[in-house]
């Protein structure tokens, strides 16, 4: 049943596996050589190499159309290559800031060179797993890769070995593994449906001879023949399961803990792209669901999940006292917005969703990197204990302030464009085509987003403004204390600025990405 896509030659195959292979090799380098001056920038080089190969892959896909690689294991289409671009773009930012972070941790005595080597190696393995998750052609392999990200990051979350870090790691592994197990059950059920396709030839009865396999393309091609009753169960399980990993309600409880306890570069990667990788799986499941059962079913499910996530985020953001948790809850909010956009469907909304993934990934990683830096300088993650940052750390404060403005969706940053796109598509689809649920949900979401924006601005301005310079004496003791140099090193500053500038540029024009975004949205709306 699988449509015949062209296989690739050797150079193209190497290019296709590069996003997985390069970080994996970098992980091996760290495992063998450890953390030493020669290996400090290997992570950054690997991220840049992945970004390069991702861009090359994307242009190749745009030129030659979708293709399979490595004997059908990897699927190269606009959507999957776009996700690799997102992953590697955020990875470059995180990798640029990592050496500064680790040097400060080592200086503070909270990490050894061995911890630093393990950190770097695990982060590279994490990148490889995420690249595999988006490139894999087979739903089963996607599952294995997503679960692998949990295993790899478990030790990164618990790296500091404090009470809170161990607690966060435990919750992270237990909740995510349980959630992703539900997704596995969904895959099993979907596989069952795919092996018993309703054949129009036999008058709608099960057709024993045909099977669709578990590849995305095969499932999409056969989706019209999937049994709706069984597929419904599978879709619910898959959305809840991958939704757990994407930080969507109701199984979101791990997210604020893990994101606030993980080291800053890992928080940046988890919040920026790991959530989006899981969400990408939901987007592809939705394509199958829409063909098999019509768009209403998945839309209703996603609207419920989206509104629940937005409400959770808003209620816990208003009185938040910890700035890292504040950023984590904001990630839940943005995942809710993505779910809403996916529920709306249609090329315009999906393109906005994909743009939002990239914009949110970069802005959120800038903010997490900045917050990690702030934690190292002040030794506290309490919002109340940070005052007047703008006076003493103008560059860091500026990045954080601009980042939060970008995050709440002010122009010219791309989040403004993508939120506008989702809202317009939601209101248009909702009130023009007679599905008022979507329209009202979009309206409610806009109200919640406004409330969250006010809360974020309030919290951030308390931290950045004011004249109490005394709180910003570098804390030499206390749980988060570090001997961080007060002056921000160039590489870390470059990461923060690069992220913000790129997001702003994307907001002005998507430029060369437009074609890729359009093609990816086309793929993810079921139009082959």
């Amino acid at each position, binding site marked *: 049943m699988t449509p015949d896509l062209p296989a690739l030659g050797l150079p193209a195959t190497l290019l296709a596996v590069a996003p997985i292979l390069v970080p994996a090799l970098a992980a091996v380098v760290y495992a063998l050589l450890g953390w030493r001056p020669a290996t400090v920038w290997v992570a950054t080089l690997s991220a840049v190499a992945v970004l390069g190969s991702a861009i090359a892959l994307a242009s190749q896909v745009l030129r030659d159309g979708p293709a399979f690689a490595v004997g059908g294991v990897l699927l190269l289409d606009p959507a999957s290559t776009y996700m690799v671009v997102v992953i590697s773009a955020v990875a470059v930012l995180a990798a640029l800031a990592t050496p500064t972070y680790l040097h400060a941790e080592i200086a503070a005595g909270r990490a050894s060179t061995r911890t630093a080597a393990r950190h770097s190696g695990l982060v590279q393995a994490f990148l490889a797993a995420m690249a595999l998750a988006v490139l894999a052609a087979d739903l089963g392999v996607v599952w294995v890769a997503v679960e692998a990200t949990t295993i790899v990051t478990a030790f990164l979350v618990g790296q500091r070995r404090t009470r809170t870090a161990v607690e966060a790691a435990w919750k992270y*592994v237990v909740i995510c593994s349980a959630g992703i197990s539900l997704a596995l059950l969904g895959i099993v*059920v979907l596989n069952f449906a795919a092996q018993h396709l309703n054949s129009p030839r036999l008058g709608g009865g099960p057709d024993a001879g045909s099977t669709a396999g578990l590849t995305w393309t095969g499932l999409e091609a056969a989706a019209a023949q999937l049994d709706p009753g069984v597929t419904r169960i599978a879709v619910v399980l898959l959305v809840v399961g991958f939704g757990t990993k994407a930080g969507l309600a109701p199984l979101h409880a791990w997210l604020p803990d893990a994101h*606030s306890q993980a080291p800053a570069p890992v928080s940046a990667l988890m919040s920026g792209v790991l959530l989006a990788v899981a969400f990408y799986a939901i987007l592809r499941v939705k394509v199958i669901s829409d063909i098999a059962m019509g768009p209403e079913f998945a839309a209703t499910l996603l609207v419920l999940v989206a509104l629940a996530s937005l409400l959770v985020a808003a209620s816990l953001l208003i009185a*938040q006292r910890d700035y890292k948790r504040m950023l984590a809850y904001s990630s839940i909010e943005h995942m809710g917005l993505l779910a809403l956009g996916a529920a709306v469907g249609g090329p315009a909304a999906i393109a906005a969703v994909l743009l939002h993934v990239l914009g949110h990934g970069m802005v959120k990683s800038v903010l997490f990197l900045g917050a990690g830096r702030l934690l190292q300088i002040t030794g506290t993650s309490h919002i109340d204990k940070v005052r007047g940052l703008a006076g003493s750390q103008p560059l860091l404060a500026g990045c954080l302030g601009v980042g939060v403005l970008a995050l709440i969706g002010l122009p010219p940053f791309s989040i403004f464009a993508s939120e506008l796109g989702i809202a317009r598509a939601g209101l248009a689809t909702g009130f023009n085509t007679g599905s008022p649920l979507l329209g009202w949900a979009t309206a409610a979401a806009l109200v919640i987003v406004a409330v969250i924006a006010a809360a974020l601005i309030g919290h951030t301005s308390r931290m950045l403004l004011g004249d109490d310079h005394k709180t910003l004496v570098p804390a030499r003791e206390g749980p988060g204390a570090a001997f961080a140099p007060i002056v921000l090193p160039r590489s870390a500053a470059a990461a923060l600025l690069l992220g913000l500038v790129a997001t702003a540029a994307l907001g002005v024009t998507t430029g060369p990405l437009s074609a890729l975004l359009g093609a990816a949205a086309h793929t993810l709306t079921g139009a082959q």
Partner: protein
Amino acid sequence: MSAVHVQLLNLSAGALLLSAVLVLWRRELVVIIRVFAVQGIALAALIAVLGAVQGSLELAVFAVGVLVLRAGVLPGLLRYALASGPQERRETRPLVNVAASLLAAAVLTLLALAVSQPITALAPSSATQAVPIGIAVVLIGFFVLVTRRRAVSQLVGFLLMDNGITAVGFLTTAGIGLVVEVGVALDVLLVVLVLQILTGRMREVFGGTDLDELRELSD
């Protein structure tokens, strides 16, 4: 499928469900682990019966693999995790008391039955008729995971879910492909290892694995 095979299939499916209920019922962690090992045997038997029916060597190999992993290695790891902390022998105060959780399990089983109607209807056979039992085991496992406080009980809850999913997988189809099958087994093993290491760290910093102690991170 002959009548004897159907009987054996039903018997191992029944044992699967019964052991899930017993995990919910018993408090002694050692007994819980033993029951879990018994469930591994029941699962292997289930796969072996399916293999015998289809005359498939691949399924026989899977059955052996499942037996080794779920009745040998995983219970061994759990026992090891338990043995390194001497004071914890019992699940003392589950969030939902045992009588209520048993009644909840009854409700979950009925729920599984209701939910899996379409699956049975799509391809009625003795194997798919047992699918509700697999789904019930998944739900009971989830319930254990949510309501138990000891690290080891939560682990067993997670593994119950996984056993249930594996059962559903083999009952609906002959597995979901070799690569995925091995990947899943590896992932489960790794998750257990990760959690076991975390259990050790938890003892280091908390002095116990009562997860009630995990309340520093909350809003």
